[in-house]
Every structure is written in C-alpha cells, then in structure tokens.
C-alpha cells in the first residue's frame, strides 16, 4: 500500500504543476543578475546563497496540495480504515514530494548556476548540498502542510511556519555550497536527518488532530 501511495503522490505531483517550483527556482536565478548587476565576481560570490533561497521558496510552492485535498476528500480517513498508520502515510507523502520536486531542481541548478556565473566546483558543491538538504525541505513541507490543513489562508500561514524551521538547513546548506568544507557537510546532514526523522511523527499527529 505504501508503494501505491508513493506512486499516487508522484502521479498527482507530475500531472499537477510539477514544473512550477522549478520554473520559480529558475526565475529567481534569472532575476538576481538584474537586481544586483552583471558583475560576475559578485554574482559568483552570492550565487550559492541565491540558489538556496530559490530552492527554499520552490519547496514551499506546492504545499497547499500536499495534504489538504486528501483530508477534505476523505482519502486520509480511508487510508486509516485500510489499516495504514498515519506515520506511513506521512512517510509516503514525504518520499513522493521529494521525488517530484528535488530531481528536477537538481537539474535546474545547472542552468541556474550559469546564470549566476558560478564556477564548476561551486556548482558541484551546491548539487551535493541540495541533494542532502532537499529531503529535509520535503519533510518540513509535508509536516507544515498537515499542520495547516483545513485552515483558512493555509498557504501564507505555511510559509510563516516553514521558513524559520528551515533556517538551520539553509545555514549549513549554503555553507557547504560556499566551500564550508567537511564540518558544514556533517552539520547539514545532521540537521537534515533530524528534520527527516521527526517529520512523519509531527505529520501523523497533525492528521489525527484534524479528524472531526
């Protein structure tokens, strides 16, 4: 059942607007040279940080479609009646969400790095940092989506909730991208693991609490 749920999440993700977060990501990378000017040295310095902010906001975009439609339509109830623990549902949602947005984002980072005049080494470091950090962003997005499901103006509320929680990943992830070395990599991995491990339980508790 969990495999079917992951496939369903990916199908819905891709038939929805899977390109939207990626387009948004590239848009920010495109706007940056216009905003700070075409100085290649300056762009190269701020490039990694820009990509991280772009990735963070891209992860936030599909948040209203992650949990709320399934709650409103009774799918979460039916999954519970089919004997599936809410924690398993949450895990499936995290995996499906990560698979729909992260691989595309990692590909889009290549043209984005060119727009920001980043060198090859910088791009490689950013790819590694994003690969480690995006699971945490996906986990946070699902947890926050479950916490805000059914609330009015859930989208903006979700942003306010998610962005502070994502700050540790942002700090260490951007530090890895900027050449922070081994310790930054370890710290990013550790933060990512903590968020990834905690999120299914937070999500499950939130799903149970929305049942009325």
């Amino acid at each position, binding site marked *: 059942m969990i495999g079917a749920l992951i496939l369903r999440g990916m199908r819905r993700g891709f038939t929805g607007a899977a390109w939207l977060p990626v387009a948004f990501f590239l848009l920010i990378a495109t706007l940056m040279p216009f905003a700070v000017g075409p100085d290649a040295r300056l762009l190269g310095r701020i490039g990694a940080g820009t990509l991280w902010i772009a990735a963070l906001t891209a992860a936030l975009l599909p948040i209203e479609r992650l949990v709320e439609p399934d709650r409103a339509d009774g799918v979460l109830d039916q999954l519970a009646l089919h*004997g599936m623990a809410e924690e398993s549902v949450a895990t499936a949602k995290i995996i499906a969400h990560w698979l729909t947005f992260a691989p595309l984002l990692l590909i889009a980072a290549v043209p984005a790095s060119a727009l920001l005049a980043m060198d090859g080494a910088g791009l490689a470091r950013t790819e590694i940092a994003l690969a480690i950090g995006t699971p945490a962003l996906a986990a946070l997005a699902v947890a926050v989506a479950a916490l805000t499901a059914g609330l009015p103006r859930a989208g903006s509320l979700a942003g306010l909730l998610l962005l502070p929680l994502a700050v540790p990943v942002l700090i260490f992830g951007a530090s890895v991208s900027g050449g922070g070395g081994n310790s930054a990599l370890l710290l990013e991995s550790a933060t990512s693991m903590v968020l990834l491990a905690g999120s299914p339980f937070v999500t499950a508790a939130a799903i149970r609490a929305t*049942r009325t």
Partner: protein
Amino acid sequence: MTPLLRFDRVALRRGGRLLFEGLGLALGPGERLQVTGPNGSGKSSLIRLAAGLLREDRGCVERVKLALADDALALDRELPLRRALMFWNGAVDRSMEALGLTHLADVGVRLLSSGQAKRATLARVAASDAPLWLLDEPLNALDSESTDRLARVIEAHLASGGAVLAASHQPLPGEWPRLELGL
C-alpha cells in the same frame, strides 16, 4: 457468536455537547441496523465513532475490519472511475456491475453526477473484503433504480455473513431494526 461491531455504554461529546451516553449495540453476522434521528442528532458522528475515526469519551467500542461510505468521495478526480476505484481494491468489476457503474468505467471521476459519485463510494465499500459496512446516508442522491441495486447488494452482503450499520433519516429498503438518536 462474536459480534462484528459492539458498543458498550458509549458516550460521545462533540464541541461540548453530549450527543449520546450509555449507548450499547451489537451487530453480529447477517445483522443490520439503521440509525435514525433528526439533523444534528449525531448519526454521522456515531458512524465515524464506529469506524474508529472518532474516539469515544466513555465506554468502549470493538470492531472488526470495516468499510465506510460517507459524503467524502475519496477517489482521485483526475482518473477514470475504474482506475480510481482500483487504488483501494484490485477486484472492482463485480461491485461496479452490481451498482450499475460498468458503462462509466472510463469516465473521469470529476465528470460523475452526484448520484453516480454516491454509487461509486458504495461500489468501493462493496468491493472491499471487510465484513462490516458503515454507510452514512447511503440513499442521498440515489434514484429509485439505484436504491433497488443498493438493496440487492446489501442483501447479498448480509447473506454472506456480513453486517451493515447505516445512518439515514429516510426509510431504507427492506426491514431494518432502528436505533433512534436525539430523543
């Protein structure tokens, strides 16, 4: 004979209001029960309590594996009906046939009328192998032919040793013992 569903002195409170207390009921194989009562008397809450989606405030509820059809469609709207039903159960053809949905197999779920959507939720229940069925307002939006189909599906389920708990404010086809709420 072990009951498929048993309420033992159950009390349920919603939003500070006591809906019922000291409620006891037992449904064995082949048995049916209709929950009636005016709007807001707690019929749907009782169904969700029986399903385990709500927690009782006092008493205890025991249940076997069950299937639930309520107002929520729980089918992917972008899929054709048959594929959407197959997410929940592999073998859907017989229950689709029984509820007259076979000719709609390739129609998108979003295009179904409210009566057809209701039949789809009933087909999901009929396709499950759960011995206990919980139906919340099963007759809503059904025409008389569909009502007859539902009656035949329910009779077949009861004859095979299943049990049905239905909440409805209108009379259900057949002989149903009644549990009146909100008195």
